[in-house]
């Protein structure tokens, strides 16, 4: 284990911003902490970096307790959301900073800077002024700077937050490739689940200072642990129901559930992909309340007569119009029993 | 590049500190038996050659500490009398003498050559705690050009100053903070008596006397007879200054004038005498005594007038010809016993302030 957090607790005033959090990050792993603002994820990073003292619990790096170790001796890298590049230095000066602190010689610094700038896609930019860079370029410089001293753990706080969509999507792929090549251990923090899922080997969902769920992106996606996680992932088709055998009794009628589903009263989730549209007189009768174009598909909001709204995902050609009457059938494979 | 500036500054600081430790003027002086320390006010001055002569003959190096104006210097000496800053104090004048003596500032020592000091200056004969060194007269100076232009006789006495023809022509200094200002006040008190001087000042005030804070301002800004006054278009031809000021105007005139541009109203003079003494608890008494002896030698007394613009007290001391011609000592100045001054000074200054300034 490269990083271990044991019962880490941080309190601000009376409130526990981090509440007995336990987390493990293995070497070469990319872990993304996902959560809404106020969930304590930034505090988590700061605690690991040594910028925020713990009120209880421990941080272990390479098995060693970091209590009393100041930030500049921990050997971790931290990249802030707004980069925090040093305005008085040029790009090369920024990237070389960490190397200088560790006593690298001038030629070593220069070579390292050159390599890293090539790596992040800014070859030859060493002499440029920081203020003259675009957002994406600043991002890359910040990344190069954080990587330069070869930290054992690289931490990213909302690494792609400030970039436009196409850049973000491209960068996610590049980053994952880069980290894979370098073998960097990464702990990233974000509120964007698309980003988290694309980047991470493992996703950790946080809520109010506690961990709600931890698992691979696929696991979390397929089986959200509870209603909060489900809603955070963007799933709104959540409803209460009673599971008996292979079906659950819900306000939407009978929902088929997977084979090993827990029995009894539970919250159930149906992913939009599992909501199939059929002719109006088959299945649950709904009116189309709204439709949103999502690029690759259309998200359709369906209103059954006396039940909560449903969201379905349709292919472009097949999407109904607002006001249309449709029928809904459910697919067991896309149904999840939460908590 | 940060490093360079930082290192430069550190080196600079280091060098300065080293030079400080090494410089002789920085050492405590009196602890070293080969040097003697003179504590004085800011106006102390002596020719380099004369002092060097003394240093050679006596074998003592002289350190001089200048401690503000006369009043300040005396008070500071009194404050530190148990652990004084030096060995000899020069610059207590007759207005401050009682204060110094009553506070036990000096120890007894009769300087060699004291018998050559003119009798009118001698004081404290029983204990010889102080030695007179120089004297000066605080008198009204007048601007000759003004008076000849207006075909007016310059005033010659205290009484003259309140006459209507001299209205709005006099400027004096604040008696609370200025030595000549105080001298002028004491002179009027000596002349008109303890009860009468206030009436005099009321008349003076009615006659338009202007009071400014210090001598520099009075002489250089308000007095029409000075170089500075001319530039400042000063309009008062009468100022309370010293009898040695007209000679200075000649010696330091530019271009050198044929005769003094200002004169002294001898009826308005108050005698000021300056003393020196060996400080009680001086660390180097022997050196201090040698220094005191030096201060009454002919060599030093001859040298004094052109340096401090005062008159010697030693019989037979030479006075520069300009002094004799343009600003001889007053023959009959007002005087007052130091003890009387000490008793009444604060009260008189207070009355004066409310009378004249408010």
């Amino acid at each position, binding site marked *: 284990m490269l990083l271990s957090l044991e019962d880490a607790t941080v309190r601000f005033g009376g409130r526990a911003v981090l509440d007995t959090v336990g987390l493990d990050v293995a070497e070469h792993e990319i872990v993304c902490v996902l959560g809404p603002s106020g969930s304590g994820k930034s505090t988590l990073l700061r605690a690991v970096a040594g910028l925020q003292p713990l009120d209880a619990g421990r941080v272990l790096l390479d098995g060693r307790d970091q209590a009393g170790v100041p930030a500049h001796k921990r050997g971790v890298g931290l990249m*802030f959301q707004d980069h925090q590049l040093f305005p008085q230095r040029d790009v090369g000066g920024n990237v070389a900073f960490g190397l200088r602190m560790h006593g690298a010689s001038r030629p070593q610094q220069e070579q390292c800077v050159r390599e890293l700038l090539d790596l992040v896609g800014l070859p030859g930019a060493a002499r440029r002024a920081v203020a003259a860079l675009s957002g994406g370029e600043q991002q890359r410089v910040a990344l190069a700077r954080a990587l330069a001293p070869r930290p054992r753990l690289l931490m990213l706080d909302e690494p792609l937050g400030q970039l436009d969509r196409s850049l973000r999507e491209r960068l996610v792929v590049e980053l994952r490739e880069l980290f894979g090549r370098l073998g960097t251990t990464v702990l990233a923090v974000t509120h964007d689940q698309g980003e988290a899922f694309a980047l991470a080997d493992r996703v950790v969902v946080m809520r109010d200072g506690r961990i709600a769920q931890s698992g691979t992106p696929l696991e979390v996606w397929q089986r959200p642990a509870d209603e909060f996680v489900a809603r955070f992932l963007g799933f709104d088709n959540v409803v209460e129901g009673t599971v008996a055998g292979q079906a659950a009794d819900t306000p939407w009628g009978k929902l088929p559930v997977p084979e090993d589903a827990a029995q009894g009263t539970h919250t159930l989730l149906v992913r939009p992909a599992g909501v199939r549209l059929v002719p109006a007189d088959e299945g649950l009768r709904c009116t189309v309340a709204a439709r949103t174009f999502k690029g690759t598909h259309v998200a359709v909001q369906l209103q059954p007569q006396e039940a909560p709204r449903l969201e379905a995902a349709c292919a472009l050609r097949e999407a109904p119009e607002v006001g249309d009457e449709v029928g809904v059938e459910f697919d067991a494979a896309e149904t999840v029993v939460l908590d | 590049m940060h490093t360079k500036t930082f290192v430069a*500054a550190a080196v600079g600081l280091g060098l300065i500190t080293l030079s400080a430790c090494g410089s002789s003027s920085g050492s405590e002086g009196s602890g070293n038996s080969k040097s003697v320390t003179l504590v004085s006010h800011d106006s102390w001055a002596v020719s380099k050659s004369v002092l060097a002569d003394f240093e050679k003959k006596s074998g003592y190096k002289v350190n001089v500490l200048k401690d503000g104006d006369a*009043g300040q210097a005396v008070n500071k000496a009194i404050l530190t009398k148990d652990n004084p800053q030096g060995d000899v104090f020069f610059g207590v004048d007759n207005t401050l003498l009682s204060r110094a003596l009553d506070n036990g500032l000096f120890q007894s020592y009769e300087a060699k050559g004291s018998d050559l000091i003119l009798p009118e200056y001698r004081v404290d004969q029983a204990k010889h705690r102080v030695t007179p060194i120089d004297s000066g007269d605080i008198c009204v100076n007048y601007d000759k050009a003004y008076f000849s232009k207006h075909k007016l006789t310059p005033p010659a006495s205290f009484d003259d100053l309140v006459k209507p023809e001299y209205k709005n022509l006099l400027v004096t200094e604040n008696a609370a903070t200025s030595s000549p200002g105080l001298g002028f006040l004491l002179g009027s008190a000596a002349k008109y008596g303890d009860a009468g001087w206030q009436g005099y000042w009321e008349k003076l005030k009615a006659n338009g006397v202007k009071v400014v804070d210090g001598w520099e301002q009075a002489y250089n800004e308000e007095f029409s007879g000075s170089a500075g006054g001319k*530039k400042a278009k000063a309009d008062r031809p009468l100022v309370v200054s010293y009898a040695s000021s007209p000679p200075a105007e000649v010696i330091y005139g530019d271009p050198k004038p044929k005769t003094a541009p200002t004169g002294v109203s001898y009826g308005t003079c108050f005698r000021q005498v300056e003393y020196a003494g060996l400080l009680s608890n001086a660390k180097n008494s022997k050196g201090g005594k040698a220094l005191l002896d030096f201060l009454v030698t002919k060599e030093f007394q001859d040298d004094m007038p052109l340096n401090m613009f005062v008159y010697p007290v030693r019989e037979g001391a030479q006075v520069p010809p300009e002094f004799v011609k343009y600003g001889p000592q007053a023959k009959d100045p007002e005087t007052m016993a130091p003890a009387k001054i000490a008793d009444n000074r604060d009260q008189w200054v207070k009355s004066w302030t409310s009378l004249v300034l408010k």
Partner: protein
Amino acid sequence: MVVPVAFFALFFAWPVAAIVARGLKVDGAWQFGRIADVVAQSDIRHVLWFTTWQALASTALTLLIALPGAYVFARLDFPGKQVLRAVVTVPFVLPTVVVGTAFLALVGRGGLLDELWGVRLDTTVWAILLAHVFFNYAVVVRTVGGLWGQLDPGQEEAARMLGASRWAAWRKVTLPALAPAVAAAALMVFLFTFTSFGVVQILGGPTFATLEVEIYRQTSEIFDLSTAAVLTIVQFVAVGAILAVHARTVRRRETALRLVDASVTARRPRGAREWGLLAGVLATVLVLLVLPLAVLVQRSLDAPGFGYYRALTRDDGGTFLVPPIEAIGNSLQYAVAATAIAVVIGGLAAAALTRRDAGRLVRGFDALLMLPLGVSAVTVGFGFLIALDEPPLDLRSSWILVPLAQALVGVPFVVRTMLPVLRAVDGRLRESAAVLGASPWRVWREVDLPMVRRALLVAAGFAFAVSLGEFGATVFIARPDNPTLPVAVARLLGRPGALNYGQAMALSTILMVVCAVALLVLERLRTDRTGEF
């Protein structure tokens, strides 16, 4: 933090406590009743009242006149700007005796105001107020202007895009950001004018008396130490109250600001309004600041062929033990030492005060550091005498005492100038550096220092000028006979004779030039780096 506290305790707290104690302890018994006696006297209360209101009026007037100047120097670019900025700091340096002369040429008989409008202001309180503006103009221009030049104009632009008028944008965006610097400048000006001594005496005349003048009289002339002690305590309390108020209201508002390099924000004036402002400020500076200085220069040139200057170099063997020109060397020596001490101590204090974990006690020290500006210089000077009289601290006759006393006044300048800028540095920039491996000391050097380098130079300039001008307790310290420039000037002015007067003017001019040159050099120092801001 230890070093600044030790410095402060040794060279300020202890001497002041010693002399006050000496005053209040008569024959071994404490005379606290004296306090009530003195304070009850009506003329003392009158003095206190006058001191306070003239200080407030002076501060307000200075801010009013100098803030536009701060803006012009910070944001507008015009030829000769650096020289002019050095010139406006020169009044700070002049000995009061000389200022009296210079200023009377403006407001007195035959002066500019007299010739133009027949107005004579000497011996009125206006002369005092205007002279205070003359002295302290540079304090506001440099302190406020320093921060103003580094504020990101983008912030104001953002406000204007959101619909705020120019004036509203300035009021709501820039003014709050400037508030700490304005408050710091106001505080310094207030403290200086509160303890104003020479200006009041010379320009106001003997009818005006401030607390400081009164303390001087009691200590130096009348030698009533107990009254002086009481007055010092009164002054202390008043100043302490002001500092407390300042700390309360202002320091809360110091937040992280976006700081940019000053050279980026300065530009040529645009539009009639800005040109008008520039012209107005230049006219003010010309009349109020340059004219009095010019009078001095002109008087020094009255002798044909620089006669007075040549006279200075002649050693006539008697008048001074040291030729006046050597006084320049002495002055510079003291000034360099005092500046070095002030910058080191002040820098350490400022660094300690901006640490995230600075406790309440440390922050209280922030206010304490300003005390030397507000407590009577006479008291401090006398205090040195009785406090620093035992080895290993028998510094009374050591030359180092003078720079130390000067540093006492210089340190608050350094701290006050650097603090607003230091506090405006984004804490996360420091954290970034820490995580990249920089120890706390290196963080300060790599992150804070470059950002405050400019402020540091401004502060060093102040400390240098303070030393050259012999502020505060230095006037009351005994020193070995190495006269500095102000002392030499005072000596020359203390003698009659055209030659002496002319030489005094010449020496004053030299003093002004030395100061201006030194300040210019400091300004230039920051622009010799390529590729960095």
